[in-house]
């Protein structure tokens, strides 16, 4: 374990799993959505539902959706800030079958009606795991620079992405692909060893069959 996991993190209390982890879930959801949502429908499951209010889990999730990090002292005021910025949010407590005890399922809706559903768990010490994205099972932590790419399931689309990354000398740490059905929509999750620049993201987005490119930086 790193010494800064012992002396740290710097975070808004009271709980690394129920507060810091919740901010991170909201933040990662926003990053994958690629813009500030207009609306967020949030389902809290398990311990998030049971003790979430007392831990500020609700405010923490909204803070993350607004782009805040776990050490942002505005987290307690996130509801008011969301109102000012026109982010409409709702909460519901519900049992999600088979989900980790600290799970939030979030549906984000943009101005133009575009929707994204993401389910993530806070697994301890402020670390999180994305478990489901756009209806597909997932398993990534977003604590490394992570690319989330949506594409049409056609031959060559993976090669295109890896070609761009290799040209930019970005080393791939892990690579996972999920698809809804053969020839349907697929999602690539690529953990990288370094930050991916906006230009590189644009190059990937310009490739044929690529529908969207999101990037989550570790901080």
């Amino acid at each position: 374990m790193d010494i800064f996991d012992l002396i740290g993190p710097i975070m808004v209390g009271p709980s690394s799993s129920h507060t810091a982890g919740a901010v991170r879930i909201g933040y990662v959801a926003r990053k994958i959505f690629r813009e500030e949502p207009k609306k967020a429908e949030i389902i809290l499951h398990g311990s998030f539902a049971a003790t979430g209010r007392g831990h500020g889990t609700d405010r923490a999730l909204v803070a993350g959706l607004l782009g805040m990090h776990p050490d942002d002292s505005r987290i307690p005021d996130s509801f008011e800030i969301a109102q000012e910025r026109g982010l409409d949010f709702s909460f519901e407590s519900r049992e999600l079958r088979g989900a980790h005890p600290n799970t939030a399922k979030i549906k984000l809706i943009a101005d133009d009606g575009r929707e994204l559903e993401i389910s993530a768990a806070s697994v301890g010490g402020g670390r999180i795991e994305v478990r489901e994205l756009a209806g597909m099972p997932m398993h990534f932590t977003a604590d490394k620079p992570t690319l989330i790419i949506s594409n049409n399931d056609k031959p060559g689309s993976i090669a295109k992405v890896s070609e761009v990354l290799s040209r930019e000398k970005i080393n791939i740490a892990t690579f996972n692909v999920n698809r809804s059905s053969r020839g349907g929509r697929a999602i690539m999750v690529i953990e990288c060893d370094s930050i991916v620049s906006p230009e590189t993201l644009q190059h990937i987005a310009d490739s044929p069959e690529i529908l969207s490119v999101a990037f989550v930086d570790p901080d």
Partner: protein
Amino acid sequence: MSFLSVKEMISGAQEAGLPLWEYIMVSSAEEAGISTEKSWEMMAMRLQAMKDADAGYNPALRSRSGLVGGDGGRMLNYARSGKSISGDFMGEVISAALRMGECNACMHRILAAPTAGACGVLPATLLSYAKKFDTSDDEIIRAMYVSAGFGTVIAERASIAGAEAGCQAEVGSASAMAAASLVYLHGGDEQQMAHACAIALKNMLGLVCDPVAGLVEVPCVKRNAAGAVNALAASDMAMAGISSRIPADEVIDAMAAVGETMPASLRETGNGGVAASPTGIKFREEYFGK
């Protein structure tokens, strides 16, 4: 490399010909792939975060459940009245621990050390020590490396999570980390740091994690005061030349073993200990409206 034992950590520093704090800084920076300058800068930021959190304390604040708030201020007034049983310095330490615990419960920005629930122990001891002995920031940062070194061994061999091993792993670990670094600040040697760590942790063995209504409030905030005072006692014993009959590594292993035998009700579920007391249950029902 990560430190797997206190013994190896201390002998490693001796072989490298470095003071313990520096050995911890150098090896952890190497492991993380960062420069020692960057590491120092990160630690300095953390010291500043502790100071900022303490400076931002407001006795009027209450937690969202309403169970916690104001006690740090109450304790400080009392300590400064000159009438406290434990004396001015210990009164200040108790107040500082309560203040930080309340900051955390009231959603202020704090430094988890090693966890958010136990965030009061390290600042209460180190910042109060610095005030009393006029210690420089650089020296406090070095002491924080000592804390971190002992903390990593505890995390590797046992746990720092209440859900895994009870409060002995949270406030207990924080107290052991603080005790070792107080010995450093007071000019003790590495063996004395290890003894202080061992004594502090032994005194906290078996401490359960029993948060009322599952919130990091009752009894968590006041336990930070216990952890801080225990760290003072352990470090003073070590400085007096008193040794722990059981070596630090074996105490840490014992803590892990005790944690393993602890029932789930006493590991952060809010179903045992004072959380299951009639008043604890009443608070939970009032809060959740059951």
